């Protein structure tokens, strides 16, 4: 584990990595997504395979719009109250993005299987959904313990990299995510985690019995960068709410290619204040 600055953290994402990220209301790594977008706009080539945990929002749409994403696996891509995700919708219609539709509990279950080191995991439901016909990696078997009971099997999903934002890290690189346990599952499942945090604190997070259950051990964390308001315009529990006005502005601008470029010029590139540690 090491501490780096935001652009160096973005630089640690291999161009063709399988990358898991959480959505806007779940400690989404927006500053990091903007840093990746800046790297792309500066000429870096990316063909990331994104994983929405379990859905996707602003950060995903921004990465799609800047041409960082070749493929996405998610249960939905939307800006919630601000409406549909414009760059995602445009890319699906144009056929320039491979969308692998899923359903939320399947995304969680596939990551849980990877976190447990097992090759697959059964899940109820899904039978009769057209998702099954298009997910050739999802299988239906007969429950070996109860003949005549068809059940879906999902493969384990181990992302190359988990990207997320959190409130606190300590000097050793332990990261506190509180009740956002989906981030812990994601970090346990991924080979490496790259994290941005609001603050780096002096005290140990794992020696505090109240904080330890909401803490991800540094063993899972490759690198951490300081990024104040790093989820913005997404929110961070107990720190700041979603910036609905900004998400609405993004949704309105990104509706056209020209508007999306205007958004990038205004908020993404260049952004020296955000890139500084």
């Amino acid at each position, binding site marked *: 584990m090491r501490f780096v600055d935001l652009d160096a953290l973005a630089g640690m994402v291999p161009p063709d990595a399988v990358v898991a990220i959480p*959505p806007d*209301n*779940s400690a989404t790594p927006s500053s990091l997504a903007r840093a990746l977008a800046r790297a792309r706009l500066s000429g870096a080539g990316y063909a990331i395979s994104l994983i929405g945990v*379990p*859905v996707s929002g602003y950060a995903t749409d921004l990465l799609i719009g800047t041409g960082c994403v070749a493929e996405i696996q*998610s*249960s*939905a*891509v*939307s800006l*919630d*109250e*601000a409406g*549909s*995700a414009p760059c*995602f*919708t445009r890319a*699906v*219609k144009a*056929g320039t993005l491979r*969308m692998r*539709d*899923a*359903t*939320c*509990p*399947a995304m*969680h*279950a596939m990551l*849980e299987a990877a976190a447990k080191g097992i090759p697959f995991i059964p*899940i*109820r*439901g*899904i*039978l*009769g*959904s*057209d*998702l099954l016909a*298009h997910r050739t990696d999802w299988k239906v078997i007969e429950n070996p313990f109860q003949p*005549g*009971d*068809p*059940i879906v099997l999902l493969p384990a999903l181990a992302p190359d990299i988990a990207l997320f934002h959190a409130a606190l890290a300590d000097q050793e690189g332990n990261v506190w995510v509180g*009740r*956002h*346990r*989906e*981030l*812990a*599952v994601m970090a346990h499942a991924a080979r490496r985690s790259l994290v941005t945090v609001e603050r780096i604190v002096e005290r140990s997070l794992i020696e505090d019995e109240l904080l330890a259950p909401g803490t991800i051990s540094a063993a899972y964390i490759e690198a951490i960068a300081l990024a104040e308001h790093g989820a913005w315009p997404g929110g961070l*529990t107990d720190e700041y*709410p979603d910036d*609905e006005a900004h998400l*609405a502005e993004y949704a309105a601008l990104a509706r056209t290619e020209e508007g999306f470029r205007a958004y990038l010029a205004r908020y993404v590139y260049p952004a020296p204040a955000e890139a500084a540690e």
Partner: protein
Amino acid sequence: MSPADEALIVAIARLIPPSRHAAIGAASPIPAAASLLAREMSGNLRVSMLYQRRGNVFTDGTGELFDLAAQGRIDLFFLGGGEIDGAANINLIGLGEWPGRAVRFPGSFGSAFMYLLVPRTILFRREHSRRVLVPRVAYISAPGTSPPGVFRRGHADALVTGRAIFRFSPERARFTLASVHPGETAETIRAATAFDYDIADPLPETPPPSREELALLRGPVAASLAPIYPAFVSRLAA
């Protein structure tokens, strides 16, 4: 929120009893408002809301909602659809070549799972039109019914739109028009609905929201909802 939104929320809230535990997924202001209103009316409903800022009961991450449902601990869920057909299949994927090359909806969210595992689902969609209520959905995110042998706890109970309420019979895989909202008739609903259905005889009018229901909706329900759905609630107050 418009009077039409309020009428839709109140109509859904009245259908919620006798369910005791309603769960609300992400991006669902209308079922959230309806459940909070039902809780105010009956005082006997647990409402578990994902991404709630205060009183969020999901302490084991956003996946816990689905674990609860899988165990049968949730009685009631809500689903919408870009398309809903006469057999209660819902499409949240899109239209045209897969995966929605003509029209792309956001995606299936938890529908493919929750529809089969929760004992009771209320379908809702404010827009009541022939493009939404179709004879057959283009793609099935979640099926309205399942063949024998498929593990399934429940089905759609009702479909509430901005113009009418239907009830669903899983045995017959068919809706019955149960009431029409004020200003609508059997004929206007038939003209706006592209799937086939039966009609209750006699066909009542949906009672409009009462003074008490509106006061609760605009008061304590709006106050609880504002931190989660600020834009929605500011439209409600307008």
